[in-house]
């Protein structure tokens, strides 16, 4: 299942790219700015601002959606099942109520991603798989990446690496650039915040470093989670120890997706302001660039 194709993306990999966003993630990072991507099933988003006041379209389809005394839409989310989602897909005229997530038809996805081929070729760009965690659907990634390679098109993947090694192994030959997240080096803190196993990620990193054509390590810098010099140094030390990685992106926490939590009726637990600590970023950049253990000088970019 996927939920979006973003064309003309210029900040996730080389050149002009299209990003395929796949649904479902094995982590639950509270700073995630794509919360609609977490569930591997379809999600229902509701934007009050677009709702037409005297419209009954959705209520005619299902009794899980009602209007309260103030006339505002109330969704009984627990009662929403696949059948209800089907009936709501092309229902709301303004798309205030929208169903996020589409079943993948590989051929159609492939054709759509191919539409900007001329731009990829001219700019050295290509297709990037993202999510969610794209490697929860390795068969799909393998199929499309392989066909992109047959077309001479570059491929990249954004992954949190929190997947079984076999999923990574499967797509390895068809991915040119790995944009891999490294969020922390403390097992327990990682478990508390992201609800996942750090050792699994670290083992995958060590394996990947032996095989991947190009690895870019991306460090999201999140207030309260890893925004101290000490924690960042530890993360950078690990990145440097991989040897195969010579590019690092420092991604300061932002809040551009906060609104989506509202649309999903999900609580938001992370900071409500973007990270504002340029000194920390610059120091971390310097630390990484001049790391004594690095085999070759790291390229360190702030904001990727």
């Amino acid at each position: 299942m996927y939920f979006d194709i973003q064309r003309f993306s210029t900040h996730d990999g080389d050149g002009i790219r299209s990003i395929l966003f796949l649904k479902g993630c094995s982590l639950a990072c509270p700073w995630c700015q794509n919360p609609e991507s977490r569930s591997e099933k379809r999600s229902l988003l509701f934007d009050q601002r677009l709702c037409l006041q005297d419209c009954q379209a959705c209520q005619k389809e299902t009794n899980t959606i009602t209007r309260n005394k103030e006339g505002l839409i109330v969704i009984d989310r627990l009662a929403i099942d696949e059948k209800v989602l089907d009936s709501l897909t092309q229902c709301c005229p303004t798309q205030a109520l929208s169903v996020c997530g589409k079943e993948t038809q590989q051929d159609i996805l492939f054709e759509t991603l191919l539409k900007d081929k001329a731009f990829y070729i001219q700019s050295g760009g290509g297709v990037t798989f993202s999510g969610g965690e794209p490697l929860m659907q390795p068969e799909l990634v393998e199929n499309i990446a392989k066909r992109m390679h047959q077309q001479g098109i570059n491929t990249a993947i954004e992954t949190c690496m929190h997947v079984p090694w076999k999923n990574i192994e499967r797509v390895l030959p068809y991915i040119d650039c790995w944009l891999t997240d490294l969020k922390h080096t403390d097992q327990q803190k990682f478990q508390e915040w992201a609800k996942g196993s750090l050792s699994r990620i670290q083992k995958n990193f060590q394996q990947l470093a032996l095989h991947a054509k190009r690895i870019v390590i991306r460090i999201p810098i999140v207030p309260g989670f890893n925004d101290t010099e000490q924690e960042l140094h530890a993360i950078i030390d690990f990145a440097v120890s991989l040897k195969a990685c010579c590019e690092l992106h420092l991604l300061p926490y932002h809040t551009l997706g906060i609104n989506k939590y509202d649309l999903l009726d999900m609580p938001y637990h992370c900071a409500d302001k973007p990270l504002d600590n340029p000194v920390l970023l610059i120091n971390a950049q310097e630390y990484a660039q001049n790391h004594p253990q690095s085999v070759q000088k790291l390229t360190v970019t702030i904001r990727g």
Partner: protein
Amino acid sequence: MNLNYLAKRISAHKLQLINILTPPICTERAQAYTHIYQQHEDKPVIVQRAFALQAHLQTRTLWIKHDELIIGNQASKVRAAPIFPEYTVRWLDAEIDDLAERPGAGFSVSEEDKKNIHQLAPYWRGKTVQDRCYGLFTDEQQALLASTIIKAEGNMTSGDAHLAVDNEKILRIGLTGLIDEVRAHRANIDLADYEDLKREQFLKSVEIVLLAVQQHIIDYANLADTMATQETRPERVKELQTMAANCRLIAFNKPESFWQALQLCYFVQLILQIESNGHSVSFGRMDQYLHSFYQQDVETDKTITRAFALELLQSCWLKLLEVNKIRSGAHSKASAGSPLYQNVTIGGQKLAQDGTPCDAVNSLSWAILESCGQLRSTQPNLSVRYHEGLDQPFLMACIEVIKCGFGMPAFNNDQIVIPEFIKLGVEKQDAYNYSAIGCIETAVPGKWGYRCTGMSFINFARILLAALDEGRDATSGKVFLASEKSLAKGNFTDFEQIMAAWTEQISYFTRKSIEIDCVVDSVLEQQVQDIFCSSLVDDCLSRGKTAKEGGAKYDWVSGLQVGIANLGNSLVAIKHLVFDHPKITQPELAQALANNYATSEGERLRQRLLNFAPKYGNDDDAVDQLITIAYNAYIDELSKFHNTRYGRGPIGGKYYAGTSSISANVPFGAATMATPDGRKAASPLAEGASPASGSDRLGPTAVYNSVAKMPVNKILGGVLLNQKLTPATIESEGDMLKLSMLIRTFFNHHKGWHVQYNIVSRETLLAAKANPELYRDLVVRVAGYSAFFTALSPDAQDDIIARTEHNL
């Protein structure tokens, strides 16, 4: 390049000009022309006009101000708009007393101006181009014009222009050389021959005018000399003396220095715009024909510095900004911001000795680009000819200038224009020498007749509405061509019948637009010959004909079609939601359109049309192909017609399509009822070949893919694409590189015709609308041209704010 520098005198001059909010008008030309026409009523009109121009040049007020380095003034006061009574006095007489009040296009008119206008207007009534056009129009044509579905007001209230003359030639042979050529032709005239008698009137007129131009340049020399004697600053004294000496030379001989050459080109540009009030008078490929002068003075002999050469150019650009034009209230809405569209084209290819094409970018291309980037004005309208071999550093420099946010340069694509011109019958060396004219349209400088675009405007959206309702125009309720079916009666049996109704209506309106052009062209030909202009267009002198009589070597014209995206989006919405996946019935749609989607049911239906039907600009074949089919109905019909010069000399003599709708999408939208694409009545139509505002949601690559599916090779009047980018998106070098790749792909792979960028954030535009006094210098791309944002009317401002902003 240093784009953040501006010489003191230049920035002071610019500041003066942009703070003139309601410029004056000037009646000197009108008075001189009235007087001379009256005096010479026995003469052929062309000779009357020669004497009128001569007398006006002799008597008008001359001035040199602002420490300028290029001299010549169009009117008695700075930025004053001259009056051209022979084209029209109708609106002038009616609107003159309230001109200051016009939103976005006000003029301040003194009591004396009003008196003068009211005094001379009676002489012209019944004699002007506009009046004579109405004398020729059939009742049906008049009704069509009154409905504004077809609009030709600009064409019958001003000269044609929309061309570049042969600056290269005047630089090569000088004014005396040109006069010698005229005299040589006159020597062969046989006055016993009827055709020769006519030719003689033309050639005689040319000689009168050219001699008057020479004297006029001498008058400027005298003025500069006089001013030098009164000037106290030694530097300025020297400049005035040099300009005087320059004028004395170029009044007769070919120029010898860059300064002289530029000054001569400006005089030509100026007098073209005193002879006629036609706009889009363009310089052609200035970086090519002035390069040898620039190279000699700046690089070889080092007689002037590069910085001074830039000042000369900028002084010339500011003189272009001083040229002004007054339009009727109605017409000024279609030309928001009083634009003159004086285009300068740089870059592109040239042919080497052995005939192989090579990159034509030279040191002057760079200097012109930099001078415009520093000045950030609306004039000239700067175009860059793109081709695959265009120097990448030069392309990056163009993007750096685009980044300054004043909408320039725009790009035209050699890779579509040149081969298509050659297919039409343009000779290879001429095709390689094409330039942009006005906005985005293209022609061969000095060899092409008028209006490679700029003939009648047609409102596609209104014609579609008529096709959906038995031929009834939704705005006026009038039926021009009755047809059988209507949505209201629900008697379209399938979508094919909708397309058939469209084809029937558009064919009718196309024919009518050509009929109207035919009337206007014939009146312009007989009443307002451009003498000076024709003397600089091949082969007018050897044929002894004005350009309008068929003197030009090439002559293709194009009208303007407005609302293309609305047409396609409307058709596909009907196809999808009424026929293929019926969710809306024909009468429901008819009712909603009639009510302007006013009821809550109507609003829900509108939202369905907006959200559940494909939209042009998103690379969706369902709508992109439908646009092509619908547009081809127009193009096929158009190909059946000729212009008035067909068979009278020029190669061509035909029409092609063109989409540079200038800002007409706003007033045309204001006169268009609700459309089936979900657009409400009176809101703007889509502009040029760009997607409808806010409907392109997949970013620029999808837009390019959609635009490229249009029959671009048949729309040689230009395929206009405006894109708005946020400033943040081209901040870094890497971002700029990606934009350059985007442009290259669009042109190399998609064979796009044109693209231009607005790089001003929405916040800035909103702030400028709220506090105009802080943003007088904010220049934005309107359509194929840029305008000062605060000089636009509020609805044109809103239209620009609404255009989709892409984040790279």
